[in-house]
């Protein structure tokens, strides 16, 4: 028995994260939360599969149906694109956002507030940062499956114009990571279900106006700046560039945007959870 215990202790993770967060917040064991989620969802795979269909239905309705009315749209470099080719990467970005935000807000609020799941976890060697990283990883794993499937559908429909699209999957994961991290951080400030209306208030306008369905050129100059700072716009730019093959140095700017967003979200979420749970 003692040897298992020794191993349990020595297995505590190491590395950069351990150096920048206070001791006790992180033990390098977030993966177990993903394991738990797999056990929980073992019987709920149908619910998971259904999550894949939403962006595909949007693609069929808008890209194929509505697209018949629109001859061509100007793509990232100004080159003409079919409407379906234009809208598909944006739907990929939006579904990465929606999935991550949903997982990181509603699901986590429930576990935190009602199920007291995290209280139980924190009585073990796990720390709040393990919880943040574990929950976000699970959201990513699921989101990654959806993104990969959606990219395959795009490929089948001839909506992928460049091998750069291979990078669209990791890019979509990064986007989801950033949204999940910030969503989780935001959740730690919420007091009741009413506060979630604010989440909708942030997510829905972004979905509608962040060049998901039409190019930035439709906006007057002053509004463009507002659109351009939104994270969904950054995500759409990045993914649209990759699937249409118009990749510029600006893509690195998009990546940096999400790296900062993700890191800030994780640290704030971990610390806030610590403050709320370790009273």
């Amino acid at each position: 028995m003692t040897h298992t215990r020794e191993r349990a202790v020595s297995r505590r993770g190491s590395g950069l994260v351990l150096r920048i967060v206070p001791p006790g917040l992180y033990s390098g064991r977030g993966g177990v939360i993903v394991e738990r989620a797999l056990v929980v969802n073992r019987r709920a795979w149908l619910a998971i599969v259904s999550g894949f269909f939403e962006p595909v239905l949007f693609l069929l309705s808008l890209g194929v149906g509505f697209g018949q009315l629109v001859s061509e749209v100007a793509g990232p470099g100004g080159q003409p694109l079919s409407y379906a080719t234009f809208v598909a990467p944006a739907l990929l970005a939006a579904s990465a956002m929606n999935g991550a935000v949903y997982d990181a807000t509603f699901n986590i609020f429930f576990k935190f507030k009602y199920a007291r799941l995290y209280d139980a976890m924190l009585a073990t060697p796990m720390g709040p940062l393990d919880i943040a990283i574990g929950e976000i990883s699970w959201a990513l794993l699921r989101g990654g499956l959806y993104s990969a499937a959606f990219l395959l559908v795009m490929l089948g429909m001839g909506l992928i114009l460049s091998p750069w699209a291979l990078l669209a999957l990791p890019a979509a994961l990064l986007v989801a990571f950033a949204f999940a991290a910030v969503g989780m951080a935001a959740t730690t400030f919420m007091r009741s279900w009413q506060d979630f209306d604010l989440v909708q208030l942030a997510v829905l306008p972004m979905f509608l106006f962040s060049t998901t369905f039409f190019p930035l050129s439709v906006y007057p100059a002053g509004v463009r700046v507002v659109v351009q700072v939104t994270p969904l716009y950054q995500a759409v730019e990045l993914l649209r560039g990759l699937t249409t093959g118009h990749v510029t140095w600006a893509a690195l700017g998009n990546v940096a945007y999400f790296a900062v967003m993700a890191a800030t979200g994780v640290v704030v979420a971990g610390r806030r959870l610590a403050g709320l749970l370790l009273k």
Partner: protein
Amino acid sequence: MTTVDLPLVRASGLTKHFGDFEAVRGIDVEVRRGEAFGFLGPNGAGKSSTMRMVACTSPRTGGDLRVLGMDPDVDGPRIRSRIGVVPQEDNLDTELTARQNLEVYGRYFGLSRAHVRSKAVELLDFAQLADRADHEVEPLSGGMKRRLTIARSLVNDPDLLLLDEPTTGLDPQARHLLWDRLFRLKQSGVTLIITTHYMDEAEQLCDRLVVMDGGRIAAEGSPQDLIARHSTREVLELRFAPGDQDAVVPVVTPLADRVEVLPDRLLLYTADGDGVLDAVHARGVRPLSSLVRRSSLEDVFLRLTGRTLVD
């Protein structure tokens, strides 16, 4: 670390504040290996706050605390890997079955899958839940959930087990079943720390205990010690019709070592309950009912704090 006589928990001047409120006001405690140690006190005494500090899930405000020889502020995860915690409120994972609750919890400790699988079987047996192993936990009875929570706390073979009000809210049969399980643990050498506001639970389970009230420790010792030190051998309880009680107090006070006036009865502390009852009758006092019993921890608490344990 391996020194046998090193106390598993040592607190001195331990305090816990929530904002301006002082929940724990400087307590000194030592828990030795192999004993069952109790915190007896009413709601709000600061028992759970103390337990959470020992469990390293709540940072202390002041004073010194060592658990298994380590400082929770520094070695929280390492300490937690060697203790088991049964919180006051069950927090089982309602999305998992009973068995999965044990297995997944074991994984939080970094134990191998094979190990937690066999451990879960052993613990389900111990908790007498083998026939419910693959059921959801929500429909389980209160007693079953409590036993499962205790089983869960044992998944890492802890050196020290913290039980916060293990039987509050359970019916008598479920309590006895639980006490039996805790006895077995004690017998097998696990060090237990138990909080309770039931004096019978403290008397049954604890080798040594502290009486806690208002964030302070009022007394410390074995149940027998405390009774011998702070109470008399017997107690005579007298009940009267509403309104009659006040007039009787001056009459019976000289007959006993000490008299406590409760809203619904008088308690007369004495070495000889029957003798005092005769004397009471001889003075023409006619209570509705009377009862002679041995002193309990409840009486100790009343003596020390002027209040009853359960209101």
